[in-house]
């Protein structure tokens, strides 16, 4: 597509209309709130002040949380890689018995994550957990609080975030040319040598990217430290949350958010550099598909099998227990003792009929659906505009729309709170903090970068002759958009909307900052239940929520990914979200 000069571009009424709305949205919700955080931190009274920094340095709790976050981030980058690479290899590289079953087990993190997963682990391994109850029957003297603190957080987050490896490393592995492996074998290289010297080096760029993402996930972690960290292990984001809630320490919250933001931007810059630098994928034009490698060493083979199945158990046990206990009565949940006749569908009936139990579920569904529709619907026009016109103006717009991609959601949320807790002319003098609208705005904002990239790619994949053919026959801009482009892009748009819907359904990180006190989405209720707020009934409600969420997510995933995979031979899946998805999108939605 030829570059259109900015001046020519704005002559079109369609462009002008979209442009004005876009400019307002970007100014009001992307630029101003975040700039406001900086102002609040460093220029609280219009003059530069280092008070926030002094407060931070003198607050032992805040400093400790900073240290904890970086410790968690560093540890997580190691553990996630170890587990992640291992599960990718056993499911995609080595010939392992039952690899398909293993894959399904490891893929459970696709259908639940974030607060739901943290809650699940707590209900099972926590002080009142099912497994803990069983264990303390066997070992009466044991510490019931054994599963908390740094190690618990690290373990849970490790197993929760291997999703990126399953998506991106596995995909990169498929790009390895099997002929290179045969060539190495032909020259006498062993299984281990081939892995170390041929395969892993080829995965290096991808591994680097997922390592950075793991680091960022650790740095910005909220739900896992909150639920499982206990008193002694708190990290930055929970601190930001605590400080935000009291007006006197808001500057401290802002400073922490800024630190988090700067660290995130730095890491992402490094990652983008690396991505641009060296991808050393296959130099060949015709490469042959990877075939699974047999581990020839019998002992090594046995050890890998054992490790693979132990991991499988770790991954699937929470899911299996949640599903089983979602049918159990509260007595069974408290004691951990379960028998066939204690399994009923009562919990489901209660959740689906009792309005207080159903309410958070409905709130989440409505929020997610509306936000997904707004994000995709609005960006359809924007993406089209950015894809068609290439000039400095659209480039600036595109960069600005990526602000939510480079900033942690805690910072975004904090920005919205402090910008709109008083009448603001940008939104017609309204106060947004404390209303139901502000969470919706945050949801839409957070989903912009992912949606925009996917839609742009989708528009780009449409053959431009179609459009030209329409124009030659006299169709106008809007008519072409509506009759020719939209039908082609719609399947992708639907897929993106579904993925967005999924990721917001169990959102906790944004909602905890912004939700209306009376309109609480699911994530918050689940979190409250982990604190024992609603007693045994709350726990069994959470199990039911989790199962329902898993079903919804699993179904969406199947519709989006599963069907795309079957059409793999055609070009269709390139339009579909999965393949072009950048690592960060998935990660941030589940941290």
């Amino acid at each position, binding site marked *: 597509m030829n570059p259109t000069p900015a001046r020519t571009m704005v002559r079109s009424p369609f462009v002008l209309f979209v442009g004005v709305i876009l400019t307002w949205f970007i100014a009001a919700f992307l630029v101003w709130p975040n700039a406001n955080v900086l102002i609040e931190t460093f220029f609280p009274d219009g003059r530069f002040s280092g008070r926030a920094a002094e407060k931070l340095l003198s607050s032992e709790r805040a400093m400790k949380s900073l240290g904890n976050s970086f410790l968690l981030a560093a540890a997580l980058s190691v553990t996630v890689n170890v587990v992640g690479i291992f599960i990718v290899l056993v499911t995609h590289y080595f010939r392992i018995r039952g690899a398909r079953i293993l894959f399904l087990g490891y893929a459970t993190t696709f259908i639940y994550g974030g607060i739901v997963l943290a809650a699940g682990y707590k209900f099972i391994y926590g002080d009142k957990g099912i497994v803990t109850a069983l264990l303390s029957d066997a070992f009466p003297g044991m510490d019931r609080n054994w599963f908390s603190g740094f190690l618990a957080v690290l373990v849970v987050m490790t197993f929760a975030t291997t999703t990126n490896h399953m998506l991106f490393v596995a995909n990169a592995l498929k790009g390895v*040319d099997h*002929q*290179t492996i*045969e*060539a*190495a*074998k*032909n*020259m*006498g*290289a*062993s299984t281990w*040598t081939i892995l170390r*010297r*041929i395969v892993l*080096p*080829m995965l*290096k760029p991808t591994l680097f990217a997922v390592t950075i993402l793991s680091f960022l996930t650790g740095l910005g972690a909220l739900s896992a430290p909150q639920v499982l960290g206990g008193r002694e292990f708190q990290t930055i984001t929970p601190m930001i949350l605590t400080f935000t809630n009291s007006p006197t320490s808001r500057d401290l919250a802002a400073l922490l958010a800024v630190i988090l933001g700067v660290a995130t931007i730095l890491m992402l810059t490094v990652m983008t550099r690396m991505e641009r630098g060296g991808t*050393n*994928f*296959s*130099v*060949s*034009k*015709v*490469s*042959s598909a990877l075939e699974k490698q047999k581990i020839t060493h019998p002992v090594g083979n046995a050890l890998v099998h054992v490790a693979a199945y132990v991991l499988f158990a770790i991954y699937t046990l929470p899911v299996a227990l949640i599903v089983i206990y979602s049918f159990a009565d509260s007595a069974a949940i408290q004691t951990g003792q379960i028998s066939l006749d204690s399994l009923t569908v009562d919990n489901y009936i209660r959740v689906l009929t009792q309005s207080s139990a159903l309410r958070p579920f409905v709130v989440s569904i409505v929020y997610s659906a509306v936000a997904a529709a707004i994000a995709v619907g609005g960006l359809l026009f924007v993406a089209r505009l950015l894809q068609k016109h290439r000039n400095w103006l659209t480039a600036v717009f595109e960069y600005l729309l990526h602000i939510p991609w480079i900033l942690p959601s805690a910072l975004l949320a904090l920005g919205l709170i402090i910008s709109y807790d008083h009448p603001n002319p940008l939104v017609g003098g309204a106060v947004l903090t404390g209303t139901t609208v502000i969470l919706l705005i945050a949801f839409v904002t957070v989903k912009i970068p992912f949606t925009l990239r996917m839609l742009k790619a989708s528009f780009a994949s449409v053959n431009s002759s179609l459009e030209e053919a329409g124009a030659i026959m006299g169709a106008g801009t809007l008519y072409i958009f509506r009759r020719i482009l939209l039908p082609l892009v719609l399947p992708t748009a639907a897929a993106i909307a579904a993925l967005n819907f999924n990721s917001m359904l169990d959102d906790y990180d944004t909602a905890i900052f912004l939700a209306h006190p009376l309109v609480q989405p699911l994530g918050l209720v689940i979190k409250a239940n982990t604190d024992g707020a609603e007693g045994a009934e709350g726990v069994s409600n959470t199990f039911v929520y989790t199962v329902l969420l898993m079903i919804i997510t699993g179904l969406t995933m199947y519709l989006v990914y599963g069907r795309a995979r079957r059409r793999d031979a055609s070009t269709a899946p390139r339009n579909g979200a999965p393949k072009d998805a950048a690592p960060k999108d998935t990660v941030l939605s589940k941290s």
Partner: protein
Amino acid sequence: MIRLENIEVTFGNFTAIPQLNLEVERGEFFTLLGPSGCGKTTALRTLAGFIDPAAGEVFIDGKAVTRLPSDKRQVGMVFQNYALFPSMTVWENIAFGLRVRKEKPAASDRLVRDIAQRVDLSASQLRKNVAELSGGQQQRVAVARALVLQPKILLLDEPLSNLDAKLRHQLRQQLKELQSEFGITTVYVTHDQDEALAMSDRIAVFNKGVVEQVGTPQTIYDASATEFVCTFIGDSSVLTSDFVSELNRHSDGTLAPGANSYLRVEKASLTPPAGNTDAVPVRGVVVSRSYHGLHSRYTVRCHGSELRLLVKEDGGVHPVPGAEATVYVRPVHVLQYDPQTGEAVGNPALAASRP
């Protein structure tokens, strides 16, 4: 040097190669030729040790290697896409096998530089990343990487297939030169008959997992043992039995009118061939002529056959379409095959070259 004995290869229910017998001599450039899916690559990979045959034995240098892994067979291989390791430099690629063998670094370096020089790779190219090399240079790296381990046999799996036509011609030459310089026994797989004819000492023509003929390029071309070989290689016209009877009438009558008969396009001419008295003149009408600069292609209908022939543009006879013409054909050039079995008939020399 290489002997494949009663090799059978199956993939699940599919039998790729039912029964294969082949023998390759020391120092020979031996080509496996056939259309895609004919089993030639399967045969090569069986030889390389990447495929376990369901039955049969592979012998290299008199030793059975059927159960040996690839790296114990002393075969070097150049893959279709060269399979260069993208994460390593040229030097590291070539030295890979030596490092695996735990060769001393100094010795490795000497061997790598030595082989690089022989395949015309400069010292500065050795430091480059493989992605920075041209297709031709990549091929030389792949050859060097295979040869540095001093294999007994070099296997080449369509190494020219992903290059453009011009480069392919050039590299074909280089590859052949390298082979004769090193004198290494080479098995080459291709679907390009031109390549096979120009490079090989001997060719085995594959069809549906079966070797149809083994022979020198000239034998394969001029004395195709089966109808498949005849039609797969070169360009020929189908002769009607009427046409064949006409030839018989004007010669000693050795051709079989009932057989499927073919004549290579370059074997018919519009002028009587000098010095050959057995050429039979056949009358016909010119159907079409297409001009190609170097030559023209004619189609002449005579006795029911659409005879195609090449006429050199040297200022000789050039009838226009619609005109009458006389085509000269030597009966010995007619290739005849049994309609049932597809095997050559009437020419015992042809049948002899069938394996």
